[in-house]
């Protein structure tokens, strides 16, 4: 099972990204299963939120919170702390949206890519970086998930941002 932990602040779309990953993984595939869920609670703009995506080739029946993640994706670098390493599998990776370098994590300036496509938040950019780094889903599947589950008027900008991020990793 591949487990992804998403960290963001209320309004940054961490859960949307978690959901898109689950949808992308299971699109047109009868032998792939996913669960996506937020850290449950009232939704408050700016408050730290966690979201989880679990991916497997058999039905995912463990609905408990992820204790060891393959990837931790952080949408806001103020949420990074060294303690997060404890939530990571030995082979795991932490990806942070940041203009600065962080020890023990890969950082990308996702906000700049988001701004380039007039997006108020970098969730689909971070999704694209994860896709590029991990290959857990193809960029075609990720695009299809955006088309299936995001409002029509913001689809194209998010798709462009996602593909730019995938390309960024390839370079």
């Amino acid at each position, binding site marked *: 099972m591949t487990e992804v932990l998403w960290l963001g602040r209320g309004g940054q779309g961490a859960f949307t990204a978690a*959901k898109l990953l*689950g*949808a992308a993984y*299971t699109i047109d595939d009868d032998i792939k*299963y*996913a*669960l*996506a*869920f*937020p850290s*449950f*609670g*009232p939704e408050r703009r700016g408050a730290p939120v966690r979201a989880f995506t679990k991916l497997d080739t058999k*039905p*995912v*029946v*463990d*609905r*408990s*919170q992820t*204790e060891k993640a393959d990837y931790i994706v952080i949408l806001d670098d103020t949420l990074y702390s060294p303690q997060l390493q404890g939530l990571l599998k030995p082979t795991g990776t932490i990806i942070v949206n940041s203009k600065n370098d962080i020890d023990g994590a890969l950082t990308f300036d996702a906000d700049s890519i988001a701004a380039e496509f007039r997006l108020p938040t970098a969730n689909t950019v971070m999704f694209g970086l994860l896709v590029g780094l991990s290959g857990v889903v193809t960029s075609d599947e990720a695009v299809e998930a955006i088309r*299936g*589950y995001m409002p029509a008027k913001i689809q194209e900008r998010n798709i462009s941002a996602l593909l730019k991020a995938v390309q960024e990793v390839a370079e």
Partner: protein
Amino acid sequence: MSKKFLSGNEAFAEGIRLARPQVISAYPITPQTIVVERLSEMVEDGSLSAEYVHVESEHSALSCAIGASAAGARAFTATSSQGLLYMAECLYYAAGGRFPIVMMNADRSTALPWNIYGDQRDSLSQLDSGWIQSYAENAQEALDLALMSYKIAEDKRVQTPYMANLDGFVLTHTYETVDIPARGQADKFLPPYETDNRIDFDSPKNMAFSAGPDTNCIFKYKEHKGLLAAAEVITETEKEFAEIFGRKYTGLTENYRTEDAEYIIVTLGSIAGLCRETADKLRENGVKAGVVRIRYMRPFPNKEIADVLRNVKAYAVLEKDISFGNEGTVFTNVNSALKKAGVDVKGYNFIGGLGGRNISGADIGNIYTSIANGTESVNFIGIGGGDNGK
């Protein structure tokens, strides 16, 4: 049939759309809100032809559904937690009036302390209200139960309202892939509601009447028989469902690796999957572990429980509930089933997940270890024992 990545609430709303209720009365409450939001969107976009009544309270939501059902309409409402408790008076009216309303309840903690997260204390406190009570494990089962619920509730042998329970957040807000049946097939499975138990100007009758000491008990006896009859109707309905849609369900309970099991956890709702996974791991180490998932708390699976626990060394009942001053209500019900069947095996109660607290795989592993070694009769996971006399 189409596949979609949906939350439990959204999946349930899809099932209700296929069931074509004519009246939906709704008052929003977390974590139920999304199901009534989706249904209002479906009514708005014309994909569901229903009268959508936005009422001022949960008491009114169920009163409105009762009125609609008394007019012969298929009615739906949904609630959670304090909302369920606020409408408690009407639960008994609906059941006693034999109105086959379907209500989704998003299982959530009850105040105080105030808490919006999932546990099962709300619905389990209403076991005596005369409603059928189902507990789904995942979003697919939730959708399928939404469609099956009306067929069961409206059956002439049953005529009893149906409460479909979904664990708050863990099920209502978790996204997974679900198959949505085709509308034509759903219509074939569930025909429109027809009943004599309705207001009819051509053939007036007395409804929702008083019954004094001489006849009251007879009505209550018939109400009891109606709920009991739901057991065989559930079996028939699931058989027909499997023939049309290809998905099989197993009646009042679902057993997992119980044939030769020495230690069994009896539980309900969305935690069952992690119990099965834990049982698999223990079996790799030679522990004969099994799981029984209760799918229906009413009618209660007395025979099924007694049959499956007859030969175990010990069992645990894991529930998100406590009847203060005694034990978990599911534990009480399970023990009664065993006593009636003359089964005498060691049983222990584990209370967990109250107010949404995470139950981990390690917690479940500890339950199997504890019942093998013996423990307090009532245990709060991660806290300690709280016996009320062994």
